[in-house]
C-alpha cells in the first residue's frame, strides 16, 4: 500500500465495536451460536465493561413481566412515547424480546434484580408507562448488568482489543461490502486495520455535543460519524432526549451535566426558580411530575426568562420531604451530591436539562443488518426503535435485546460471508490522513473549541428550536469544523495522548452536530424530543414521516420517508377490547 504511515493488521471473524449492553451481549451470543473455532474480537475505546452508558443505567429495564402487563401494552406505550414515529417491527421485537432477555440476564448471566418480599421480581413505575414495568437493582441497575455480562465475556474465548478506538469503517474497493475497521491502538498510538467477516457497530451514540450532557466521557458519536462518512443513511437525527435534571456545578467540572435521578421529582421534589417559586404548574398540570420533554422545556423556558446573572439553571428542592427521609430514600444521590459539595437532602441543588440519549441512528432492519454487507448496528447507534422519544427503561432493553440478536445473526451469517475482504486503499489512506491531521497543524486549544460547539448546540439546536436558530447553528457548526481542521495539538507523541482523542472526539461531534441541525430544520413540526417554537404542533399523525440523512461528498442531504404502520395505526390500539387504558394508579 502506498503509504508512509505504517499500520498493523489483524484478522478475525466477528468484530464487535463497544462493550456496552449491545456489544457484550453480541459477544456472548456470537460465542454461544457460532461454530467452534470462530474468532470473536471485541474492540473498545476504554476498558472492557468499564466504559459506555449501559453501566450508568440507574432507573432500570422495561420488561412486560409485571402483574397484568403484556407485550402488547409495552408496545403501545413505546409507540405512544415515540409519537408514532418508531419502526413498529423494531419496537415490537424490542418489547417481545425484552422478556426473554431479562430472563436470560437473571437465569444465565447471573444478574439479580430487586425482588418483592415474596421473592418475585419487583417492577416500578416509570413516567409515560401504563404499567409497573421497570425491573431494577436499586438505582444502580447498569452496574449489575454490565458487571455480570463482563464476567461472562471475560471468562470465554473472546479476544479483547481494549483502548482501541475505531476511526473508520473501511469498505471494499467496489463499496459493496465492509472490509474491516481502522482503529487506533490508543496505548501505543499505532493504527490497526481489523478485517472481519461481520462487524457490529455498538458504540452507543451519546449526544455529548451539548453544553450539558449525561453520557460517559469517552462517548462522542464516533459510530454515527463513521457511518456517515461511509454514506449510510441515518434516521431521526433531530431526536435528542434531554433529561430535565442535570447537575449544574460550573463549566470547570466534569460533574456538570450528570443526572440527578428521575425519582426525585417522582417522589415529590420541587423545582424552584430563582425567586424560590414553583414554576412547573405554569407549563403542565402534572407539575414536576410531567414527562421528561415537558419538564425540560419548562426549565429551559424558565432559564431564558431568568434575569439573575448569578443563576443559570433552576433549583431542585427536597427538604420539604424531611432531610432524613430524603437521605433514606435516595442515599446514593445524596452522597453523590455531598461528594461534590451540595446538600441535596436539606438545601438547594442547581439543575439544568442535560442531553441524555440519542434516538436517531443508522437505518437497520429488525435483524440489525445495515445497508452494507457485513455491517450490523445495535444499541444506541441504531435508529428506529424509539422514534421521537425513548421511554425511560427502554434504552438498556434496546441495547441488550438487539445486541443479542446481532450476535446470533452475525454468527449465522458468517457461514455465508465466507472470505475476508480486501480494503479500499484510498479510503484507508484518507482515514489515516484525517486522523493524523492535528499533528500537522499549529497547536491550538481543542477544549475551547469543544466548549464553543457545546454552546452553539445548546443555544441553537437544543431544547427548543426555530428555523432561524437552526440555520444560524448550521453556520456556526461549520465554522467550528473549519477551525478544528486548522487546529493542532502540542503533544506530538501518539501513545496514550488524550488530547489527540479529544480532537478526534470533537471531529465526530462536529460532523454529527451538523446532521442533527439539518434534520431538525427539515422537521417542521414538534414531536417528542423535537420541539419547534415556530411549528409547535405535532402535525398529522396518519401522515407521519421520519427524516433520513445521508452524506454524499461534503454535503448532507435530508429526505423524509413515511412511517409504515405495520402493526397499529394512529387512533387504534392492539390491546384487547376492555383492557383499561392504564394499570398505574397515578401515571
Amino acid at each position, binding site marked *: 500500500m502506498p503509504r508512509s504511515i505504517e499500520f498493523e493488521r489483524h484478522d478475525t471473524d466477528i468484530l464487535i465495536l463497544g462493550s456496552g449492553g449491545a456489544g457484550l451481549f453480541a459477544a456472548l451470543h456470537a460465542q454461544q451460536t457460532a461454530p467452534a473455532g470462530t474468532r470473536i474480537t471485541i474492540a473498545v475505546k*476504554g*476498558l*472492557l465493561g*468499564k*466504559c*459506555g452508558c449501559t*453501566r*450508568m443505567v440507574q432507573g432500570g429495564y422495561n420488561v412486560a413481566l409485571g402483574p397484568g402487563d403484556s407485550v402488547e401494552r409495552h408496545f403501545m406505550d413505546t409507540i405512544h412515547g415515540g409519537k408514532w414515529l418508531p419502526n413498529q417491527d423494531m419496537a415490537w421485537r424490542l418489547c417481545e424480546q425484552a422478556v*426473554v*432477555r*431479562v*430472563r*436470560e440476564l*437473571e*437465569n*444465565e*448471566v*447471573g444478574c*439479580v434484580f430487586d*425482588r418483592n*418480599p*415474596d*421473592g*418475585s*421480581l419487583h417492577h416500578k413505575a416509570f413516567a409515560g408507562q401504563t404499567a409497573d414495568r421497570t425491573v431494577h437493582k*436499586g438505582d*444502580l441497575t*447498569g*452496574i*449489575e448488568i454490565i*458487571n455480570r455480562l463482563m*464476567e*461472562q465475556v*471475560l*471468562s470465554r474465548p473472546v479476544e479483547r482489543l481494549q483502548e482501541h478506538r475505531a476511526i473508520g469503517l473501511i469498505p471494499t474497493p467496489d463499496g459493496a461490502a465492509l472490509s474491516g475497521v481502522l482503529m487506533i491502538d490508543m*496505548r501505543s498510538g499505532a493504527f490497526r486495520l481489523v478485517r472481519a467477516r461481520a462487524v457490529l457497530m455498538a458504540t452507543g451514540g451519546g449526544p455529548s455535543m451539548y453544553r450539558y450532557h449525561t453520557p*460517559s*466521557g*469517552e462517548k462522542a458519536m464516533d459510530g454515527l460519524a463513521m457511518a456517515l462518512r461511509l454514506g449510510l443513511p441515518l434516521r431521526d437525527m433531530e431526536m435528542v432526549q434531554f433529561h430535565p435534571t442535570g447537575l449544574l456545578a*460550573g463549566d*470547570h*467540572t*466534569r*460533574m456538570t451535566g*450528570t*443526572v440527578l435521578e428521575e425519582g426525585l421529582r417522582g417522589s415529590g421534589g420541587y423545582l424552584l426558580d430563582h425567586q424560590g417559586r414553583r414554576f412547573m404548574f405554569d407549563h403542565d398540570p402534572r407539575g414536576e411530575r410531567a414527562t421528561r420533554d415537558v419538564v425540560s422545556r419548562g426549565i429551559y423556558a424558565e432559564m431564558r426568562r431568568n434575569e439573575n446573572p448569578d443563576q443559570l439553571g433552576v433549583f431542585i428542592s427536597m427538604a420539604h420531604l424531611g432531610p432524613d427521609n430524603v437521605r433514606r430514600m435516595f442515599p446514593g444521590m445524596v452522597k*453523590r451530591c455531598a*461528594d*461534590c*459539595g451540595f446538600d441535596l437532602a436539606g438545601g438547594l441543588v442547581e439543575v439544568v436539562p442535560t442531553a441524555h440519549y440519542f434516538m436517531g441512528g443508522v437505518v437497520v432492519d429488525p435483524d440489525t443488518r445495515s445497508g452494507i454487507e457485513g455491517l450490523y448496528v445495535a444499541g444506541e447507534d441504531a435508529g428506529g426503535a424509539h422514534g421521537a422519544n425513548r421511554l425511560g427503561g427502554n434504552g438498556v432493553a434496546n441495547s441488550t435485546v438487539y445486541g443479542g440478536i446481532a450476535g446470533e445473526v452475525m454468527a449465522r451469517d458468517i457461514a455465508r460471508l465466507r472470505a475476508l475482504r480486501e480494503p479500499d486503499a484510498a479510503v484507508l489512506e484518507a482515514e489515516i490522513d484525517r486522523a493524523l491531521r492535528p499533528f500537522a497543524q499549529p497547536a491550538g*486549544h*481543542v477544549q475551547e473549541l469543544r466548549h464553543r460547539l457545546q454552546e452553539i448546540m445548546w443555544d441553537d439546536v437544543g431544547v427548543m428550536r426555530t428555523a432561524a436558530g437552526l440555520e444560524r447553528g448550521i453556520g456556526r457548526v461549520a465554522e467550528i469544523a473549519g477551525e478544528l481542521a486548522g487546529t493542532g*495539538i502540542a*503533544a506530538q507523541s501518539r*501513545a*496514550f*495522548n*488524550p*488530547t*489527540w482523542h479529544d480532537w478526534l472526539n470533537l471531529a465526530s461531534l462536529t460532523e454529527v452536530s451538523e446532521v442533527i441541525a439539518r434534520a431538525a430544520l427539515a422537521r417542521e413540526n414538534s414531536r417528542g424530543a423535537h420541539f419547534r417554537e415556530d411549528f409547535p404542533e405535532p402535525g398529522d399523525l396518519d401522515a407521519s414521516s421520519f427524516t433520513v440523512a445521508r452524506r454524499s461528498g461534503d454535503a448532507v442531504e435530508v429526505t423524509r420517508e413515511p412511517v409504515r404502520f405495520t402493526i397499529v395505526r394512529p387512533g387504534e390500539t392492539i390491546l384487547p377490547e376492555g383492557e383499561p387504558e392504564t394499570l398505574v394508579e397515578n401515571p
Partner: protein
Amino acid sequence: MADNGQLEVSVWRGDSGSGRFESFRVPAEDNQTVLDVVSWIQQNLAGDLAYRFACRVGMCGSCAMTVNGTPRWTCRTHVKKVARNNRLTIAPLANLPVIRDLATDMDPFFARWIGAGGRFVPQRTRDDPVAPVRPDSPGRQAADAGIECINCGVCHAACDTVAASPDYLGPAPLQRAWTLVNDERHGARGAVLAAVSGAGGCHNCHSMGNCTAHCPKELDPLRAIAGLKRATFLGAFGKEI
C-alpha cells in the same frame, strides 16, 4: 480555597520502566474534583498526560489513582477533602502495572476476578421463569452486601498482601466469589470454594482491612473474605455451608 487561587499539583509521569513527579499550578475552583484537576492539566498544560475516566459519577471505576498517598476514585473526590496546604500529589494506582503516567493496566486485576471463580454458572435457561429469591434470606443479604462493587481496584491497590504476594487474588475478586457462594441460583458453588482455596486464595488475607477502610462504595471485602475462610474451612470437614 487557595490564597492565591492556585493549587500546587505534583503528578507522576512515566511508564512501566521509570518516572518522576512533575509540578503544575492549577487554578482552584469551588466545585472541583481531583479528576477535574487532572483533566485541566491535560487540557491546558500537558496534552499527553495519560489518565483514564469514563462515567464521572462513581459508577465505572476507571478513574482511581493514588492521591496524596491514598488510593481513591478521583471523579468523586472533592479537592477540598484531600488537598493539604493547596497541595496535591497524584500518582497511578499501586499494585498494578503502569501503562503510562496515571493509567494502569487493569488486566491482572480482572484475570484474578475470573480466577476466583467470579462468574455466574446457570442452572436455568432463558426459557424458564425467573427464580424466586427472597430478599430477606440470609444468603441474599450476604450477597447483596458486596454486589455493588464497581471493580475500581482501590482495595487492590490498598492491600499490602496484594503488594507482597503476586499470586494473591485480592479483596475485590474474593468478595465477588463470596457473593456467588451465597447466590442460591449459582450452579458452581463448590468450584468457587475450590478456586479460592489454592495457593493464592482467600487464606492469604491477614484481615488488615485496608480494603474495607478505602472502598469508595463502603463495601466490606474483609468481611466477605472472612466468610470464604469459614466456608472453605467447614467445607474441608464435609460441612456444606
